[in-house]
């Protein structure tokens, strides 16, 4: 006879406890980021899409168009072309296209590069109205356009 009463009472108490907890949370600060007004800075190791690094002295890429990254990429999304300019010992890159629609952001290309020519971008809120923009990302052009060293 006593058990049902106890259950009703303990059940009611458990409900009140729950309400107490949510009320406590009501007065605590907001934890979400108000996205378009606030953005986050990505950590150093953040893996965005890849970029060609800029060599600080020359302002050019160090890529030697060795095609290792092309071979390493599991998703087949890199296209590299290079040529040997007269008077230079190694090839230098003339075309570096990334198909970002297929890239799985795995980092195989960055890790395999013998001259450390690739880095990750820290952009995480990319958007575009045309697929083409990400289908072919010309990284050489991006490098030339980029202002910062």
């Amino acid at each position: 006879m006593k058990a049902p009463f106890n259950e009703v009472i303990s059940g009611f108490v458990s409900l009140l406890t729950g309400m107490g907890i949510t009320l406590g949370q009501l007065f605590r600060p907001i934890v979400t980021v108000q996205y378009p007004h606030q953005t986050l800075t990505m950590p150093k190791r953040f893996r965005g899409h890849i970029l060609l690094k800029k060599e600080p002295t020359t302002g050019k890429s160090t890529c030697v168009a060795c095609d290792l990254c092309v071979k390493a990429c599991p998703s087949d999304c890199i296209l590299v072309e290079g040529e040997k300019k007269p008077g230079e010992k190694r090839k230098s890159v003339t075309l570096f296209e990334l198909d970002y629609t297929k890239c799985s952001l795995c980092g195989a290309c960055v890790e395999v590069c013998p001259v450390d020519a690739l880095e990750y971008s820290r952009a995480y809120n990319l958007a575009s109205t045309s697929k083409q923009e990400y289908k072919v990302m010309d990284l050489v052009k991006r490098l030339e356009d980029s202002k910062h060293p």
Partner: protein
Amino acid sequence: MIIPEPFRLLTSLLAVAGFIGANAAYLVWVERKAAAWFQRRAGPTEVGWGGLLQPLADAIKLMSKQIIVPPGTDRLLFCLAPVLIMVPAAMCFAVLPFSAALVPRDINVSLLMVFAFGSLNVIAVMLAGWSSRNKYAIISAARVVSQNVAYEIPMLLVVITVLMVSRTMNLTEIVAKQAGGFWHWNVFNLAANPLMPVTFVIFFICMLAETNRAPFDMAEAESELVAGVFTEYAGMGFGVFFMAEYANIVAGCAMATILFLGGWHSPIGLWPGVWWFLLKMYFLIFTVIWVRWTFPRTQFYGLLNLSWKILIPLSLFTLVLTSGLLKIFGR
């Protein structure tokens, strides 16, 4: 001051319609904000300052949407259901005493009328579910009907308890009898019945169930039945159900305030007036929201168990107790 009757009718009609409209719109905003704060989010912030124009934007969006009547539905009933749910909810407001002077219609069976209209909304939900021709909607409608029938009983038993204590069916008089300090309110009227706070809790729970609010939101049950009876409604059809939900909550909380919390009376005997009524009512509404954002949904049979095995015996017991006490000590 005597206001000529047709004029008075018109003003009270407009005032009630405006009150319901404003409440339905802004309670959505309050609910969204409160839900966000309970969950430590920011809630609507974009439209207007603090998202204050959000209800307006929502209304425009809902109204501009096409109202789709799926093929194979019972067209008439399908379109009638939203109207049928809104009307009784609005009717209740016609007799609610906001303060001693502020009563749209002061009739002597107002208590009866509120509950008579209040129990109509189940029919609308059932029609909506039935005419939608959607399995989820029908399951949900069946649930809602048995739920509302089950909760009507303890609710009315509790109301009868209050009725016996105040010996009138006129809501204005029920409030008038609770004048002078919070210890005169029905909820603390321990002399008439030592279980009065319990009856209040029963009333509140039944009110949640009657208005299909979480944790008894069998009508919507979004994680089980997609959107329950509202699954097939689009645009303003859904919008009206949404508004009716809030109108019902306001009516329910207003009734709780009138029956148990002394209506417009001040807890300390000072400055009685409509503000006390609104304050108490909105506190109850906040509690309704608070409950929703704290608890998961009950099971369907758990809910019936609660009604038949706990609430009905308990409310019967309080009813008998009150009548016994009234008989012995008289008044």
